[in-house]
């Protein structure tokens, strides 16, 4: 086609709505966040911003964050290092517990078991429910009072008799005894948060893997069967290598999802300090303490980490693929 000025203008016009949205709301804010993160910036109504270099980043990873108004240390127990470690623990749990579980279910379902569509649809269902709802529902499940179903079940079976003292013995962050406050102690809160995450997202990864397995050419599977491969061998040598691109997507999703995670912890716990994540820390700094510079520094750390992990995971999957072929 012709490359006239009008042709170029039309191309530009077609791209314009997307560009305005994308640059205005995603790209420009990244630059702005980076700019804010090197400034001391505590009020959005005033335009006064003091350049502080990397001070915000240093503050973020040091143990003392002083509230300038009160002079009090307000974040001695919720600094960024802990939050990052927590989100990485969630990432590790997701990759090494959630994804294998999803893969096992997907492998079993895709082999033409009776009622596979019904199973698939039920397992995927929690993905559609808002994470806030799930967090709140689990808050009720964990409720330490009479109504909480988990503790009621433990009491009914007598498991609380040995389980609660056992957990109490392992709690070092507090002198209180554990009597079923799953989200109340640092030692239990993160695990309590992981269970609903597992519950919600196993179905998501399972669906993707299932779709991938259904895409494996049937000739490959038939040939393997003729060669006398066992089910395990077929899974290991044919199906899993074939769906590697999907496994990559799942790993990236699980890791970056854990870094970004906010909704569940925010809905699940009255006090997020017990399982602080970068997002909940950022929320507090911004909207409880008006520390926009510090909050922006967290945003920048998250952007960098998300891209770094996406890149690393892509590289890891590519290298292995090359060795195989």
């Amino acid at each position: 086609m012709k490359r006239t000025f009008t042709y170029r203008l039309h191309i530009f016009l077609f791209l314009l709505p997307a560009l305005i949205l994308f640059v205005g709301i995603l790209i420009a804010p990244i630059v702005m966040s980076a700019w804010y993160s090197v400034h001391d910036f505590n009020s959005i109504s005033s335009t006064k911003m003091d350049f502080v270099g990397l001070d915000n980043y240093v503050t973020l990873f040091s143990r003392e964050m002083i509230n300038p108004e009160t002079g009090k240390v307000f974040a001695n127990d919720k600094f960024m290092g802990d939050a990052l470690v927590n989100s990485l623990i969630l990432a590790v749990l997701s990759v090494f517990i959630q994804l294998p579980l999803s893969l096992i279910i997907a492998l079993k379902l895709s082999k033409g078991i009776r009622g596979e569509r019904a199973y698939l649809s039920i397992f995927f269902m929690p993905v559609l429910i808002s994470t806030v709802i799930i967090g709140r529902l689990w808050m009720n499940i964990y409720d330490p009072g009479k109504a909480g179903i988990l503790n009621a079940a433990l009491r009914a079976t007598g498991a609380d008799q040995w389980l609660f003292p056992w957990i109490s013995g392992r709690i070092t962050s507090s002198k209180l005894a554990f009597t079923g406050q799953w989200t109340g102690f640092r030692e239990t809160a993160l695990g309590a948060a992981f269970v609903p995450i597992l519950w919600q997202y196993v179905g998501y990864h399972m669906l993707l893997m299932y779709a991938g397995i259904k895409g494996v050419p049937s000739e490959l599977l038939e040939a393997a069967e003729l060669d006398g491969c066992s089910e395990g061998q077929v899974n290991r040598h044919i199906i899993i290598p074939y769906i590697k691109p999907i496994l990559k997507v799942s790993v990236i999703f699980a890791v970056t999802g854990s870094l970004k995670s906010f909704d569940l912890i925010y809905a699940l716990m009255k006090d997020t300090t017990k399982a602080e994540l970068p997002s909940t820390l950022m929320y507090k700094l911004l909207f409880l303490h008006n520390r926009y510079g510090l909050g922006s520094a967290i945003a920048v750390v998250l952007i960098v980490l998300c891209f770094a992990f996406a890149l690393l995971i892509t590289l890891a999957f590519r290298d292995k693929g090359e060795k195989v072929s």
Partner: protein
Amino acid sequence: MRERKKRKLKVSTVLVHLALLVLVFINIFPLYWMLTFSLKTNDEILGYSYKDPETGVRVQVPPNHVGLPHQWEWSNYAEAMNTGNMGQYFLNSLVVSVSAIAITMVASFMATYALTRLVWKGRKMMNKFFMLGLTIPIHASIVPVYIILSRMSLLNTYMALIFPYAAFSLSMGILISTGFMGDIPYDLDEAAFLDGCGVWGIFLRIIAPLMMPAIATVGIYTFLQCWNELLFATIFVSSGQYRTLPVGVQQLFGQYTTRWGPIGAALSIATIPTLIVYIFLSKRIQDSFIAGAVKG
């Protein structure tokens, strides 16, 4: 005969089904429990005691944890709708989600057309640029967009959520549309061009009508992202009038910390419509998630 049939039913198959049924139970039970406690009174949930008027003995009634409600307490739903304002939040979520979908759809179809069917230098680069959006966390936008919205007095409006939601759905919209648009034969463009259609004519008359299947896929994906989003919604829309469903549910817990029934009702009101839609469109909804991930 009987023995042969028995042998055919392999033990391993039975075990697999058993394991899958356990998973089904784990998936369904929390929702069943939510529905039942949404219809119970606090007394029934927590248990209570009363003094028997004839004998004068205190009678303990244990909590009813997992059973169906003894007395169906529909007033919990009325309370969640009226006092809890769930109806308004539901409407807000709908307005925001549908508007964001419309904007995402138009912007991503137009961009995809320019990126895949018009020939120009740099279109591959531009496509990669848009795909960055799949990795950019929404945290990147929070502070700058909050500040811009507050300076323009746009906090606590529908706009405050519609445009950010559309922007963050755009990359996925373009990714999904690229797949669908690639399936439309290129001969059609050429034929239309020879018939005197310009680029807009081709887009509006040929491409757009053939993108109907993409509308469902992009629409479903975007809808679920917007419908369930919390972080932007809590920060940009804190006022009651424009709160979306997730924020509304979150606030409701502040109001009813100890009243289980209305809380359960609010959770159910926010969940049931999605599940009903899922029952009818399960394949379509699953396909839209697959389309979004597999090509990524």
